[in-house]
């Protein structure tokens, strides 16, 4: 008989145990690991994600704006936007300070756009790692 109990299962970690590390890790790449007393790994994540993001900006990459239309357009633009957004404060500061650049043709700009999304996606991996550490699934 299906249960209508809305409580999480007993083996599910409480939100309070992982949310600060994951939230901080989204805002500042690697900060979740610093919070969890893994400074070496946090520093490597911070250096990698920030370097990748800054290289993307210096290559004049563009940030994705969410657009819908056919399936492929939706996947590319909404997915790209989520990837950009995953860089946290780097993305927010870029927009607030006006460093967001228009999309122009050229292989360097194209690489720049991919670097910006790639930095966000690497931060997603780091956030998942922080979640696993915070919830005790991993050392």
């Amino acid at each position, binding site marked *: 008989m299906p249960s209508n109990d809305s409580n999480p299962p007993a083996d599910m970690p409480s939100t309070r145990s992982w949310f600060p590390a994951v939230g901080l890790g989204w805002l500042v790449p690697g900060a979740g690991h610093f919070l969890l007393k893994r400074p070496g*790994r946090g520093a*490597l*994540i911070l*250096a*990698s*994600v920030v*370097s*990748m993001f800054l*290289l993307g*900006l*210096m*290559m*004049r990459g563009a940030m994705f704006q969410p657009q819908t239309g056919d399936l492929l357009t939706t996947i590319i633009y909404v997915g790209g936007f989520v990837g950009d957004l995953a860089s946290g404060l780097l993305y927010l500061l870029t927009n607030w300070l006006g*460093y967001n650049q228009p999309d122009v043709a050229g*292989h*360097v700009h194209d*690489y720049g756009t*991919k*670097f910006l999304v*790639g*930095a966000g996606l*690497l931060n997603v*991996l*780091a956030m*998942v*790692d922080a979640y696993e550490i915070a919830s005790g699934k*991993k*050392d």
Partner: protein
Amino acid sequence: MPKMNLSHFEAAILFALFSSIVLGVITKRTDSERLRYGLRCFGYFVLALIGLGWLMHFGHG
């Protein structure tokens, strides 16, 4: 913001480097395993880069 122009190869190598560092950091359980995994990922990235480069070279005739 300073501007930067990189070749395909330079950009792809930098992408591989940063991705390998993060993949190495988040996957394994000990530092030596992480280092080995990161280096292996970087090696695979470079192999794929060179392989695909040659494939495109021959594909374009």
